């Protein structure tokens, strides 16, 4: 899943650095992720995983790192399975 997140970040994140140089726990906003780009990544993830981000995950924290995105996706996918 991390790899998919990284691929979509590389494609839609418009980061000033290569995503390969960003650690899983690194703050993506500090790295240069704009709020516009974070929404684009979010839309790409919704498309890729056929999900919809619920209201309580629509905040900066859910998108603050690769790990945070993974945690959010895991939560959504688990809720869907249940």
């Amino acid at each position, binding site marked *: 899943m991390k790899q998919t997140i990284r691929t979509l970040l590389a494609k839609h994140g418009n980061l000033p650095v290569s995503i390969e140089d960003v650690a899983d726990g690194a703050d993506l906003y500090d790295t240069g992720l704009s709020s516009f780009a974070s929404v684009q990544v979010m839309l790409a993830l919704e498309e890729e995983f056929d999900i919809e981000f619920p209201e309580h995950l*629509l905040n900066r*924290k859910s998108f603050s790192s690769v790990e945070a995105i993974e945690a959010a996706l895991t939560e959504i996918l688990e809720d869907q399975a249940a």
Partner: protein
Amino acid sequence: MTAAAKITALGLAERAKRAAKAATEFADRVDVEGRFPAEGMEALKSERLMGIMIRPEFGGEGASLTEVADVCAILGQACAATAMTYAMHQIQIASLADYAVGSAWHEAFQRRICAEQLLIASATSEAGIGGNLRNSLCAIEVDGDTARLTKDATVISYGANADAIMVTSRRHPDAAHSDQVATIFLKDQYTLEQTSKWDTLGMRGTCSDGYIFKAEAPAEQILPRPFAEIAAQSMLAVSHLLWGSLWYGIAADAVARAQSFVKAAARKSPGQVPPGALRLAEASSLLQLVKANVVAGLKQFEGCKGDSDALNAMSFSVAMNNIKIGTSQTILEIINHCMLICGIAGYKNGTPFSLGRHLRDAHSAQLMISNDRILGNTSTMLLVNKQDTSLLG
């Protein structure tokens, strides 16, 4: 009881009204001369209103944002330049009070703000970046305990009259443009070389000149929290709410002038409804919309205060953006209505019904943080955000 204690024993609104009375007398001169609203700001200091939002243990009164918004609305009815200067100062205070907790320097500085009634400006706009708050080109350089910063600041409102300036910059020379910190610099720690003059249509007294800002100060003056967090959770919401409050004040005074015009006409021709009466009813309805918008926003902000998840939520940002868009557009409509009611007496300067200053000041509202930028930002969020359709939620 000391003189200061006697003043702070009175209610905030009462003190704000006294300061507004002093400011209103000079509002036209401040506007015509494009000068700092010194009398209004002096009155605010005399009324000990500069540090009210700071916590009591640091010498403040622990006032809520709602109480500060009320002060802004009162001032907005008197002198928009005084109100805007005060509102911008309070935006810095809100950041300091909530995002420097535990930092000894910043806590001592808050004590000084209260004791000496200091005025704090901010330098966020930068040449090459424009008004995008969340980007910096300049970088702070920390060398041991010393921090140095040079910024080509295109706008520093009341910069020449401030006692300290909060300046945004990149965290270090290798940091990304959005990896920012905010630093407080005291007047004796910086130089300002003026690069542009604030000669504008309205809000002339805010003296938002451009400067090359150069400073050196102890590194402990850098705010401990990342600026991204301060901007997202405090600065944007506080700006929209305090600006919205004083914009309401400008419009409310315009409606008051229009109402006295209609009343005078009614007295002259008893038994007849004056021609402007219907339009006044329309203006009154629009003014109520603006008021409701701001008050609902304040309620939502107070409800989220201290809850970083709630403050970071996309729905919260959408709501705050909508307050800014709605108030800034509607006040123009209101004041234009008032102008139609008062006719030439409203168009002319120096009458009891003059509205030129109100209209010019109000035109700044759509531009300070451009409405187009805000609408663009909201439209992005609406691609994923789910609309809250409840009436009370």
